[in-house]
């Protein structure tokens, strides 16, 4: 009888310990995220804004000196999105295999991206590729300042 009571108390204590540890870990990630988590969150927010066809919000994640391998600048990118996003019925973007390397206020992110775009005419466009994204921290926010497409290698 006494053994049963003791076992129950041990189970209760163990359960409480696991619950507290889990809560502490979750709280750490929610309230004090590390830089990699912040970058992931920024990119996920950027993806949801482009999917929501909101160029004004999307462009906030870019620095004013932004450049990419498609010869875009901050201004041309914004104009391109503003003029073309309204011709899209739906956009879905997936970022996979993300590798983030953070050094002080700079970060290099490699990932594979796939996008499906359905135009208002009902045509489906699919694009996919590997990219290197360079971000830096400005006023506590991570912003994109360079995007390059990576070449495929098969050696």
């Amino acid at each position, binding site marked *: 009888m006494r053994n049963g009571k003791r076992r129950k108390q041990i189970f209760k204590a163990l359960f409480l310990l696991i619950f507290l540890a889990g809560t502490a870990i979750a709280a750490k990630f929610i309230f004090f995220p590390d830089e990699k988590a912040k970058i992931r969150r920024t990119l996920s927010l950027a993806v949801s804004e482009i999917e929501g066809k909101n160029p004004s919000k999307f462009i906030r994640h870019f620095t004013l000196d932004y450049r990419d391998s498609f010869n875009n600048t901050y201004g041309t990118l914004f104009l391109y999105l503003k003029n073309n996003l309204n011709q899209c019925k739906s956009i879905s973007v997936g970022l996979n*295999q993300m*590798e983030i390397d953070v050094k002080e206020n700079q970060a290099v992110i490699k990932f*594979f991206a796939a996008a499906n775009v359905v135009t208002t005419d009902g045509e489906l466009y699919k694009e996919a590729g590997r990219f290197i994204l360079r971000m830096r921290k400005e006023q506590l926010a991570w912003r994109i300042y360079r995007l390059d497409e990576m070449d495929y290698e*098969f*050696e």
Partner: protein
Amino acid sequence: MKIYPDNWKKAAVRTGTVIILIVLVNAFCLGMYRTYGMSMEPTVRDGAVVFVNKLAYKFHLPQRGDIVVFRTSNRPYVYFMKRVLAFSGETVEFRNGVLFINGAEISEPYLIERGDWNVPPFVVRSGHMFVCGDNRVMAWDDHFHPEITSHTLVGKVKWHR
């Protein structure tokens, strides 16, 4: 009605074994992929599920006409599916959609439409093989047709739907 096992330990071991077996088979023997893109149409349609025999090229190289899955040699990895058309040192040419290897016309029974590609002769690099998609209606320039090494081969496409 009884819906729980008599012996939980035995059931857990059995479930674990099955999961480990599935993971091992998927990692080393039979891979499953979903296609993205139209370069292999009409043979393999966009969004099709493809099963790949990963052991197929462990002991020998692919044969001409095999549909293979290969991946980039640097991360992040991207997987591609194409048909092997030519091997190291062979001269490839397309004349009005007809494939010529070393000057000889090659029959391609798997094609529904030949297209009208005109590609001047080029030699496949040493140690490489030339792969290409079946969608010849797409322009040559819109296709991605790399020369790959055997190190990047994942396996042979066995079944697709």
